């Protein structure tokens, strides 16, 4: 498999497009089918279901075309790279989840330190820059821009 490093191997390339085409075609069919539930009580020449259906038709047809005549794709990640990408999504997802329940300051502190670590900084660097980044962002949004951020429960900050 290392031989393909110089260029995309046609077989895997085609596979990505074929899968994408199949997924999108399924999506178009499902969206078309789901549109039948868009019923309003009031009589109208054009209801809320028409436009989504109008979009589904070319989307589905083109997706099928892509499935049959795939084009070029880039290489997909494997191993460590994939782990690090998953790590990014976990850190950011966790940050989104805890932002409101923890409050801005603790959530951002943890989030930024982990994020900087993920980009291969040393712990010391990560801690120092994470703390300063958190404080700067807090001051910037809360005071300079006047945009309220979620407070730490029970503390009012």
């Amino acid at each position, binding site marked *: 498999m290392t031989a393909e490093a110089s260029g995309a191997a046609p077989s895997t390339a085609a596979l990505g497009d074929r899968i994408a085409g199949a997924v999108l075609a399924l999506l178009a069919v499902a969206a078309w089918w789901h549109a039948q539930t868009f019923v309003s009580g009031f009589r109208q020449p054009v209801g809320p279901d028409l436009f*989504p259906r109008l*979009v589904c038709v070319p989307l589905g047809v*083109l997706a099928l075309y892509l499935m049959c*005549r795939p084009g070029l794709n880039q290489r997909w990640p494997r191993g460590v790279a994939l782990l690090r990408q998953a790590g990014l999504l976990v850190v*950011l*997802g966790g*940050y989104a989840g805890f932002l409101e329940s923890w409050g801005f300051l603790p959530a951002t502190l943890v989030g930024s330190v982990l994020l900087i670590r*993920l980009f291969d900084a040393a712990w010391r660097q990560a801690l120092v*820059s994470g703390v300063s980044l958190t404080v700067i962002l807090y001051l910037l949004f809360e005071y300079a*821009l006047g945009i309220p951020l979620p407070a730490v429960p029970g503390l009012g900050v």
Partner: protein
Amino acid sequence: MDILVFLLHGFAIALEPQNLFLALIGCAVGTLIGALPGLGPVNGVALLIPLAFNFGLSPTAALILLVSVYYGTMYGGRISSIVLNIPGDEPAMMTTLDGYPMALKGRGGEALGLSAVASFVGATVATIGLTLFAPLLVGFAIRFGPAEYFALFMLAFATIGGVTSGSFTKSFIAAGLGLLLGTVGLDPATGVSRYTFGLYELYDGIDFIAALVGLFAISECLLLLEDRRRETATNQELGSAIPGMKSARKCAPTIARGSLIGFVAGVLPGAGASLGSFLSYTLEKRWLGRKGDFGNGDPRGVAAPEAGNNAAAGGALIPMLSLGIPGSGTTAILLALLLSMNITPGPLLFEQQPDMVWGLVAALFIGNIMLLVLNVPLVGLFARVLRAPSWLLMPVVILVAFVGVYSLNNSAFDLYVMLAFGVLGYVLRKLDIPSVPVVLGLLLGGQMEFNLRRAMSISGGDWSILVSSGISIGIYAFAAALMAAGLLFAWWLKREEAGR
């Protein structure tokens, strides 16, 4: 020549030292806000409104401040487009297509300088148009009913195949996906919920900014984590902004065409700056054909959308001032500001408040000149920012984007939307499917659908209303000609290659 007298008077007001100072502050603050991903003109203008009140500024002074912030944020959005490949707001999206490749080649400074000049020219053309033709253009805009708007959106999507150099099929698939995602939410006409699966957070649809930042910023971050040696503009020298001024002269015809297209799109309320920059880019690409190298860092690919979107922003002031109709989020806020200053935009504004109107026009000129001047030192500043190590730069960008997107609607849900679009954007990039049409579908789909349905409500279900006016027939003919030209061109390219 009453207009000239008023305009000169407006300049006299705008050139007072206090107002010049406000313009400078406004442009600088606006540029910084605009450069933060997720924060755009709407935030900048909204948060400075209370400031304008607190300082007890006169209406004209307050307007000068806010207009400068507006222009500043528009310009700031370009900076992150060019330097980081992350658009600061929707109209800046088109600038990533050639601006970032320019930065990769070490011509980032040139791109920034060029975009400043193109923006300046676009805005100036719009301002001149506003000065001379406002009443005439109002009459033109009024003739656009729902059927004509629908034709205009059809034109936009017919040209979408020309956005990127990738395959036509993939561009149209991306646009279809965007249009479908754009229907998510409560249908405003009937209150029926579509594809929301019971989530109240989706009732207002998918937030564009969250989608945009996800598609560009998060996916960029994922790519960087995959390949640490990935070439980024941060490894490159930014260069100086001065060559940008020179290449602007070479791009003069492009800038002129972009300004004109953008201005027309801006005058039509509801079309807006995004459509302006988009059409300027795609039409210019068609116009140049093989003479252009769009998508690979052609300076004209920066000049066209930049001129287009600033001309559109200026053009949007015409319906806002003379009809009281905001054509975009930002003009909506300017409108609210005028109202709270006891100025009611509407048909009588030009007669009743000439000082204010021409003061505003003068402020537009001043704001533009100020940005052009500020641009040279600002390029140096951003070059320094880029020398930050990438372990610091990317987390900073991502976190600013997170907080910015969160603060738009105070909704953690938007952050998940952003992440989902980040993964989508990453997969699309791997598949060589362009992301730009997805955002355009999301952005324009709503208006496209409503205008279709409005037209059908008016006609009582008769489809012939769509082609019942000269304007719509003309637009469809133009769209068909462009489509045909595009297909012919593709066929000809293929034959050329086969013959080689």
